[in-house]
């Protein structure tokens, strides 16, 4: 059996390991996002400064934590009636917010997925100054589940006009395909010719 030639190597590696782990633990309260978060928070949650605002230790992000900010009363006061009633129903049934919402996907990523997928990502809110899906969409419930239909209002008209032909029904859902990196300006290339 061949042994180690330099016995000091192992303590050195273990020392570096212990130092790094100690540093991570020590810095965790000061830089939790850099050390632990799988990605940046979305545009909607940039004001959240503490992991504990959404995460409970060893329980994860719980509906109770979400409700501390997004209560039924807040929905009723600040949202369109259909959005408020939809969420009031979810809250009453004590369903998980994570069924439809995800976080830490990046500043411009969609935080609504699953049943009510937002194909635009958070970019649409930054680009249009819309504050809610219902600024442009009507939420409809049917046999096939919930779906969003497009409203005919000034905001929707403005977005369509700004697209200079590229923003048409069925062609402008995935904003970041053309507005790469969240840029408002779009470079002309062959990819847009068939839009």
């Amino acid at each position, binding site marked *: 059996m061949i042994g*180690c*030639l330099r016995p000091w190597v192992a303590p050195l*590696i273990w020392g570096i390991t212990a130092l790094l782990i100690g540093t991570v633990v020590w810095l965790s309260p000061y830089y939790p996002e850099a050390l632990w978060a799988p990605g940046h928070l979305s545009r909607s949650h940039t004001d959240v400064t503490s992991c504990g605002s959404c995460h409970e230790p*060893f329980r994860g992000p719980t509906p109770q934590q979400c409700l501390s900010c997004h209560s039924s009363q807040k929905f009723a006061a600040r949202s369109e009636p259909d959005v408020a009633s939809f969420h009031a129903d979810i809250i009453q049934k004590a369903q998980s917010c994570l069924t439809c919402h995800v976080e830490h996907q990046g500043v411009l990523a969609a935080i609504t997925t699953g049943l009510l997928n937002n194909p635009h990502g958070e970019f649409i809110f930054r680009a249009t100054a819309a504050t809610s899906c219902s600024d442009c969409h009507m939420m409809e419930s049917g046999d096939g589940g919930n779906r969003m239909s497009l409203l005919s209002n000034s905001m929707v008209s403005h977005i369509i006009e700004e697209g200079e032909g590229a923003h048409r029904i069925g062609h402008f859902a995935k904003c970041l395909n053309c507005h790469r990196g969240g840029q408002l300006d779009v470079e002309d290339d062959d990819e847009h010719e068939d839009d």
Partner: protein
Amino acid sequence: MVAGVLGPLVIFVHAGAHFHAWAPILALITMVLVVVSGLVGQALHYWVFQLLYERRHQQDFEGLSEEGIEAHLHDLALQEKALRWWKCLHGPLTWSFVAFVLLHIGGALFFGGM
């Protein structure tokens, strides 16, 4: 050997394109170090022992004395030194990897729930 290569590939799938937080990145870096170290060690084992075995038997067959064989194998013994260096690195690196993985799992359970 197969598990040592396929396992890390599965871990890369698990990581996806998310290289944001330092705690899991440290675990990933040490995993890469352990994999590279493992592949180097595997190659060294094969190479050094094969050469030593063949050369010693050849010289024994030729009737060289034990001292003569040792002298001829001096260069190969230097290569064996590389193996002993590797021995110093691979074990501690593996335990370092285990420690970072436990840290990563602990963080995932703390923030993500059990």
